[in-house]
């Protein structure tokens, strides 16, 4: 009611301009208001253009984003009077389909400084006229013009403040970006630009939701999300470059507004290396997100449990089972068994810490990475596939590593046995890493938002959990004596265990097929044959070792074959352009939600085992498909098989460092429901029904 009253008032006060049909429905009520009831000769006060915008409509900021037009004002002033430019309060992001606008909804005040000439005569009443043209948009856009005026008395001394508007105008200035002496640089990296900002205003601040609004419409792709990486002195935003970066060019500056947590600061970045302390702390934790307020103790506990569960992963179990079996025959040599257990534990913990160190270093270098990052690089996947194949061939008996299995016992106490146990631990971690067990998601998500020391602690507990069962077996003579005695059956057992390893190699090959082209697959298969040939030659040599002859030559051939096969697969980073058919984007989610549809987002990756299991046992079932159809659920898939800053940022905002993550957005707004990491059709169906009701 009040709104329409003010619209009518505004219409009466402001003569509709020629472009406007008389009596046309207006969507913005515009007026001029002042923070003082007049001003003295030579004095300066503030006048604001107040816009009351109809619900569902918006007007624009100084950079309107992908479409639209900023509000303009043209003054007609008596001689000697001056009016400054608008001070623009920090805008809102207004997504329109796949596009992004920057503007205002509801009510906004755009203040300007008004200065009277020293020659103004006290007692006069001066009327200042302004022609305002603004564009107001919802689904359609309508230009609205207003002829406004404000009458200010000239007073002998400073005029009293206007009790109604002094507060709101002061508030508008407070909401406007402040100069804060921030240091900022930008560096183009392919299709993105890293904007690094440091300064006292950012040090130790909660940078969750930080966003850069550029002044110029050509420097960034407004609709793309901005990944945030915190640092000790500031932050680094990964932006998608705009038209101004076409053809390898770059604009001289990247100027705009950095907004976070209700504050906004002016930023003017020049090209150059990032200032120190602009990154290294990972994405800031979203407020209230699960895992965000997880304490270090809880994170360590989850990490420990996660580590325990990793022992059961199909690619890890064969290695551990063989190692445990080899201990079995040495119940008497408990000291030796213990040493083996400790060496294995040291190997796996060291590897976990090395991976954590690598992850922290990569994050410090500005990469948007998360757990499982090692599997986003095709060469690493290919080398791992070859490693799995080599282990499988070894288990099949094609060749032996070090001492033979039957002789393993005699070597238990010697150095090479210990080194073997250490590397078994390392190998087990390397192959286990992608199997992010459900318990590890929140713990690692938390770890990566913390200081490096806290992150390393979490990874340490992960390693402890992982090593615990094996060390326990080595230390508990009771368990050891209960393990079956070694004998010919072990040879059969070992050969059977080769098959999970073959499966692991096949799975990694499938992951590679998602990431690379057919040529790369051909290279991998060639390399696999070379590895098999090398294994066979090695076995041949081992069996003939007693008779001597040709050993050095054979060793050299084996060595060269292995080098050749690894080189073949460790080709340079795959340069194929991003032409994926990934249907997920935050803008799309917003659009679907605006249409009132429930939205299900599946954050997944080809190399994520639990994701594939969930796809098969829950998401691909008839029950779920029917529930989705019945409630018209939009199913978006965020594929993290390859590195993706957008998805990494989204995962981080929900307190996760890895996939899977399942979000169910309800039809009536609010936060998304987070589904468990292990899905059943029932869980999904219930979540869908709850989302449609909520």
């Amino acid at each position, binding site marked *: 009611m009040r709104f329409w009253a003010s619209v009518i008032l505004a219409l009466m006060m402001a003569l509709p301009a020629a472009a406007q049909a008389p009596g046309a429905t207006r969507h913005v009520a515009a007026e001029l208001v002042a923070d003082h009831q007049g001003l003295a000769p030579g004095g300066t006060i503030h006048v604001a253009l107040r816009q009351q915008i109809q619900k569902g409509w918006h007007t624009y900021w100084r950079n309107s984003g992908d*479409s639209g037009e900023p509000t303009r004002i043209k003054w007609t002033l008596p001689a000697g009077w001056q009016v400054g430019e608008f001070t623009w309060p920090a805008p809102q992001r207004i997504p329109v*389909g796949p596009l992004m*606008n920057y503007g205002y909804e509801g009510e906004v005040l755009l203040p300007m400084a008004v200065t009277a000439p020293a020659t103004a005569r006290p007692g006069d009443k001066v009327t200042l006229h302004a022609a305002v043209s603004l564009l107001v948009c919802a689904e359609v856009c*309508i*230009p609205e013009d207003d002829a406004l005026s404000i009458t200010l008395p000239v007073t002998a001394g400073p005029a009293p403040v206007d009790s109604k508007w002094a507060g709101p105008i002061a508030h508008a200035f407070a909401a406007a970006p402040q100069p804060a002496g921030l240091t900022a640089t930008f560096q183009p990296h392919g299709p993105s630009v890293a904007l690094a900002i440091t300064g006292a205003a950012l040090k130790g601040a909660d940078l969750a939701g930080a966003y850069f609004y550029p002044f110029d419409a*050509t420097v960034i792709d407004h*609709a793309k999300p901005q990944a945030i990486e915190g640092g000790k002195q500031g932050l680094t935003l990964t932006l998608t470059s705009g038209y101004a970066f076409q053809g390898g060019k770059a604009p001289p500056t990247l100027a705009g507004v950095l907004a976070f947590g209700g504050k906004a600061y002016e930023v003017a970045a020049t090209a150059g290396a990032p200032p120190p302390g602009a990154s290294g702390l990972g994405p800031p934790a979203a407020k209230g997100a699960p895992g965000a307020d997880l304490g270090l103790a809880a994170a360590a506990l989850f990490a420990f449990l996660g580590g325990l569960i990793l022992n059961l992963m199909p690619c890890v179990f064969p290695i551990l089972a063989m190692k445990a079996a080899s201990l079995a025959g040495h119940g008497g040599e408990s000291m030796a068994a213990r040493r083996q257990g400790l060496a294995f534990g040291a190997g796996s913990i060291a590897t976990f810490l090395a991976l954590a160190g690598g992850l922290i270093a990569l994050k410090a270098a500005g990469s948007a990475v998360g757990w499982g990052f090692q599997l986003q690089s095709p060469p690493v996947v290919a080398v791992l596939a070859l490693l799995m194949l080599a282990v499988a061939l070894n288990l099949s008996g094609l060749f032996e590593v070090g001492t033979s299995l039957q002789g393993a016992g005699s070597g238990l106490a010697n150095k090479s046995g210990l080194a073997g146990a250490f590397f078994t631990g390392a190998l087990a971690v390397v192959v286990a890493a992608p199997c992010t067990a459900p318990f590890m998601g929140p713990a690692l998500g938390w770890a990566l938002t913390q200081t490096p020391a806290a992150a390393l602690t979490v990874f340490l507990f992960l390693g402890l959990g992982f090593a615990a069962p094996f060390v326990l077996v080595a230390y508990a003579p009771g368990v050891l004596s209960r393990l079956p005695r070694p004998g010919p059956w072990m040879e059969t057992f070992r050969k059977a265990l080769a098959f999970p390893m073959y499966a692991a190699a096949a799975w990694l090959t499938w992951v590679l097929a998602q990431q690379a082209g057919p040529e790369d697959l051909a290279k991998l298969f060639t390399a696999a044959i070379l590895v098999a040939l090398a294994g066979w030659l090695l076995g041949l040599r081992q069996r003939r070792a007693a008779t001597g002859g040709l050993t050095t030559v054979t060793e050299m051939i084996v060595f060269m074959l292995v080098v050749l096969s690894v080189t073949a697969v460790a080709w340079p980073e795959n340069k194929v352009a991003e032409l994926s058919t990934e*249907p997920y984007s935050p803008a799309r989610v917003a659009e679907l939600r605006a249409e009132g549809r429930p939205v299900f987002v599946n954050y997944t990756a080809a190399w994520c085992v639990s994701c594939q299991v969930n796809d098969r046992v829950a998401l*691909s079932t008839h029950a779920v498909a029917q529930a989705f159809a019945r409630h018209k659920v*939009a199913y978006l898939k965020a594929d993290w098989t390859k590195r993706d800053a957008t998805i990494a940022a989204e995962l981080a905002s929900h307190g996760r460092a890895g996939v899977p993550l399942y979000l169910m957005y309800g039809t009536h707004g609010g936060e998304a429901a987070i589904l468990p990491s292990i899905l059943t059709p029932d869980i999904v169906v219930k979540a869908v029904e709850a989302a449609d009701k909520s």
Partner: protein
Amino acid sequence: MRLHRRALLIAAALLSVAGAAAAAPQIDAPAPDFQAMDAEGHVRALKDFAGKVVVLEWISSDCPYTAKHYNSGTMQKLQKSARKQGVVWLTVSSAAPGRADYFTPQAALAWRGKVKSAATAILLDGDGKIGRAYGAKVTPHMFVIDAAGRLVYMGGIDDRPYADPSSLKGAKPYVALALADLKAGRAVATPVTAPYGCSIRYGAAGGF
């Protein structure tokens, strides 16, 4: 492989459209090919115009920026002078069915008659395929393709991002200048500018 495809199939079925994703096209790279029905029912493809300069112009029948250029007659004038030089001018509507400015063939023909468009054809891109391939964001968003099929200009029609018709006076006409550069055998002096106008109202198939 099968799992992956199955998940995609479900996603596609539920969205009832495949999410087409493409990056913004690059200047001096071959312009993305397309094929679409025009208002008269002819199928038009970019490759049909090989050897000719092609202008793509995005419009919306209810957008004040499109109206600014048509009500003043500047757009029609540019279309006529371009076509006299042998340039092919394709006007594109990417508004999705259900949007107020969606073009059925009849609506497109009626609009053409009303504004007296001098374009070669009006392409009906209701599924947004051409718009997404070119990263078209607003109406008007302009693209110029040279005789060799390379994209040589993209951006605004001029340097005045205002709906106000008085802003036309003294504007720097980027598209006219690009066409003049091509005619004179020069490289286009300003190949990329900021487009301005109303958001294109795409249908529900994801982003760019």
